[in-house]
């Protein structure tokens, strides 16, 4: 059977701006796929195309086996969508929204009511069910949005920046929920995020998107090891900077770093740190601070685009 | 004013639409027994009221803007600046006046192009513009008082329908003499009637100092009441701010 998400040269332009530029991807059954990129990279645009909300200007996409343009209704029956701005009506209560969703997906009344109860419990909103959604906190709204997207047990779940703006506890809770959905029900999950940790923690495979194009793709592990060497970061005083740089670059290629700091990719891997420290000591250079990091997705991003993702370390 | 056409364009659109429609569909109304003027077109009859209506629609703008300023604390900044208290109020009223003059001027010009006749010539035209603009200021001052009292743009804008009602229940669109019952008596006692009637006489019959005096007199009475309340509300707001 076909893969649940397949995109071939999918593109979308808004006037002169190419928001999404010829992306190709294929997500397998039961996979959690992450779309990682900074704000404005084109993640939401791509998701809107895959969820039939936006027409591509060129290219094709098939979700759950159906073309998103030609067979949109069939796609909609089989996908669940939780977008960046929780798509809710603030004047309705949680219960009412769930019941409406049941009607929208053709669930018969009895089983629909049972389903609503289950879902509210699952996302921990049973007590808030009769309150107007306008009174919910940001985290509660996202959880309700997730519940709404699950009403009809979709084969494919699309989550657009599901934890942006949430506090750490809510974020963890949502990650747990996504994991259990994927493991218990085998739901294929397509999630977009600007948070490296989120992609690293949840996704089995990641595509890094920048300026509308996919610049890297693969499992987090393979992406990181492709970048190669771990990053060694050393802080020195400003007048020792150049000398330190000369020493360190003998042991590996320089990487972007902030002021008064030199970063290199350690060619020999982690054991090589002693060589570097010895060499710096021999030259009489005082080290204020040392960090050794295995490559992170941030390094992958920096390697692919020459920039750090927002919030990444340099 | 140039930056936000949507604030004054409807103010021009509706009075013009109404004037166009009424002059056509009620053209024979002038033949009704008891109609106070002879040999006039209905357009000439409604012209002064339409001009006043157009200007009044815009008068809520200055009050609405003031409420918006209060809402977003621009007012607080003004209050701590060395600008004199009275001038804050006067500035708003002056801009409302200018607004009114321009709008009335545009409306009269459009009406003239469409064949309206102002018997009193230039003096009457100037009088109409003056009366309309001053009326806008005096009614606007009540709006400003409400803005100062409530600080809410929504409340100010919800008073707009009241102006609409007040114009209707007057001699604006039809002679009060031809109205009946309790409706007619309310219309007769409406100060707007006492303003519109002399204005209309100047448009249809001819310019007259007496008519101008009557209109301006009543407007001044309204204005002094409105401005007085506004000043008191401004003082209250200042007291609260300190």
């Amino acid at each position, binding site marked *: 059977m076909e893969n649940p998400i397949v995109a071939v040269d999918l593109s979308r332009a808004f006037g002169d701006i190419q928001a999404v530029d010829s992306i190709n991807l294929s997500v397998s059954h039961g996979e959690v796929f992450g779309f990682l990129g900074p704000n404005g990279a084109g993640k939401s645009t791509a998701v809107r195309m895959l969820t039939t909300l936006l027409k591509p200007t060129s290219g094709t996409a098939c979700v759950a086996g159906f073309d998103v343009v030609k067979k949109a209704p069939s796609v909609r029956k089989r996908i669940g969508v939780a977008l960046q701005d929780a*798509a809710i009506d603030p004047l309705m209560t949680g219960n009412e929204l769930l019941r409406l969703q049941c009607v929208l997906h053709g669930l018969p009344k009895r089983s629909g009511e049972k389903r609503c109860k289950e879902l509210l419990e699952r996302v921990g909103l049973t007590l808030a069910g009769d309150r107007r959604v306008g009174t919910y906190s940001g985290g509660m709204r996202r959880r309700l949005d997730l519940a709404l997207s699950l009403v009809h047990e979709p084969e494919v779940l699309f989550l657009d920046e599901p934890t942006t703006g949430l506090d750490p506890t809510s974020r963890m809770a949502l990650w747990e929920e996504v994991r259990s959905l994927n493991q218990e029900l085998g739901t294929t999950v397509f999630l977009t995020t600007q948070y490296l940790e989120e992609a690293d923690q949840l996704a089995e495979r990641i595509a890094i998107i920048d300026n509308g194009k996919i610049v890297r793709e693969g499992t987090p592990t393979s992406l990181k090891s492709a970048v190669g060497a771990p990053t060694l970061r050393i802080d020195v005083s400003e007048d020792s900077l150049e000398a330190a740089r000369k020493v360190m670059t003998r042991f590996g290629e320089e990487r972007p770093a902030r002021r008064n700091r030199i970063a290199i990719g350690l060619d020999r891997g982690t054991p090589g740190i002693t060589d570097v420290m010895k060499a710096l000591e021999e030259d009489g250079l005082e080290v204020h601070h040392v960090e050794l990091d295995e490559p992170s997705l941030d390094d992958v991003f920096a390697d692919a685009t020459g920039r750090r993702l927002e919030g990444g370390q340099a | 004013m140039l930056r936000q056409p949507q604030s004054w364009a409807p103010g021009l659109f509706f009075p013009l639409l109404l004037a166009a429609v009424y002059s056509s569909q009620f053209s024979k109304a002038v033949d009704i027994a008891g109609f106070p003027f002879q040999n006039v077109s209905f357009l000439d009859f409604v012209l002064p009221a339409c001009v006043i209506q157009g200007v009044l629609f815009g008068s809520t703008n200055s009050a609405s803007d003031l409420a918006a300023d209060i809402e977003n604390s621009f007012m607080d900044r003004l209050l701590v600046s060395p600008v004199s208290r009275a001038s804050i109020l006067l500035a708003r009223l002056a801009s409302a006046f200018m607004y009114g003059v321009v709008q009335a001027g545009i409306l009269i010009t459009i009406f003239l192009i469409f064949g309206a006749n102002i018997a009193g010539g230039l003096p009457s035209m100037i009088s109409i513009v003056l009366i309309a603009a001053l009326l806008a200021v005096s009614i606007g001052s009540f709006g400003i008082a409400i803005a100062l009292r409530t600080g809410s743009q929504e409340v100010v804008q919800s008073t707009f329908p009241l102006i609409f009602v007040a114009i209707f229940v007057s001699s604006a669109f039809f002679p009060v003499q031809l109205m009946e019952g309790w409706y007619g008596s309310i219309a007769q006692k409406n100060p707007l009637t006492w303003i519109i009637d002399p204005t209309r006489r100047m448009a249809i019959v001819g310019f007259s100092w007496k008519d101008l005096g009557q209109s301006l007199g009543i407007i001044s009475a309204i204005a002094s009441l409105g401005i007085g309340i506004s000043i008191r509300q401004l003082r209250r707001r200042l007291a609260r701010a300190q």
Partner: protein
Amino acid sequence: MSYTNAADASSIAVVYAGILRGFSRMRRLPSLMIPSILMPVFFVIAFSGSFASIVELDGYETDKAVNWMTAWAVMQGAAFSGMGAGGLAATDLENGFFDRLRVAPIRPMAIIGGLVGYCVCRALIPITAVLIVAFGLLHAEMPGGILGFVMVYLSGIGMAAIMGLFVLGIVFTFRTLKSLAIGQIFMFSAMFLSVGQAPIQAIDGWLHNVAAVNPVTNVIRMCRQGFLGEVTWSVTQPGLIALAGMMIGTSIWARIRYKKVDI
């Protein structure tokens, strides 16, 4: 248990849910209703009062202005209620809830139907309010009997639906609440450029020609006939044809503009 093989959502159920949703909104925000009731009630009082003596002229077929003006006020109230559909759609578009409706496996006409159904049901309130004021306060008469009242409600409901569909098309195009103002201008023009306040014989000039071809004219006549005399097929038929024609036209308009909601 998998729900992905559930039956296609019944369009009727979706429309019904849409109407219920509209009504629960009304209950939670009652201030929404107030202008749409007060405006037409004011119109019937003001027009019957200010223009009381207009019926002395030829063509009005009645000796009480209220008998002439009530239909006009009903039409205004119905049309204004119709705009409520656009208001709800615009709010949904602005806060993102519309995405949820679009991504559900339902026919677009079901979404549109729910919105229009809501404003049609809502229109019943101002129509009834106007009738109560007209008969209770202003001594209106209905020689046309029950059938006359049927005509009033029929034309009012039809007008509400037509205005609703029209404004939806505009809102789908601009996707903001402010675009309702454009709909308002069209609505007022369509209403005023017809026989709302005067019979066609009394109107002269360019307005006469416009009113003569304006389909709203036939609808207003159909609404008004019971107040002036018997309800006849010769007046009802053109009204029904006008309503049907405008409904079809505005439905197509709304459906076409819906396709362009592509954001």
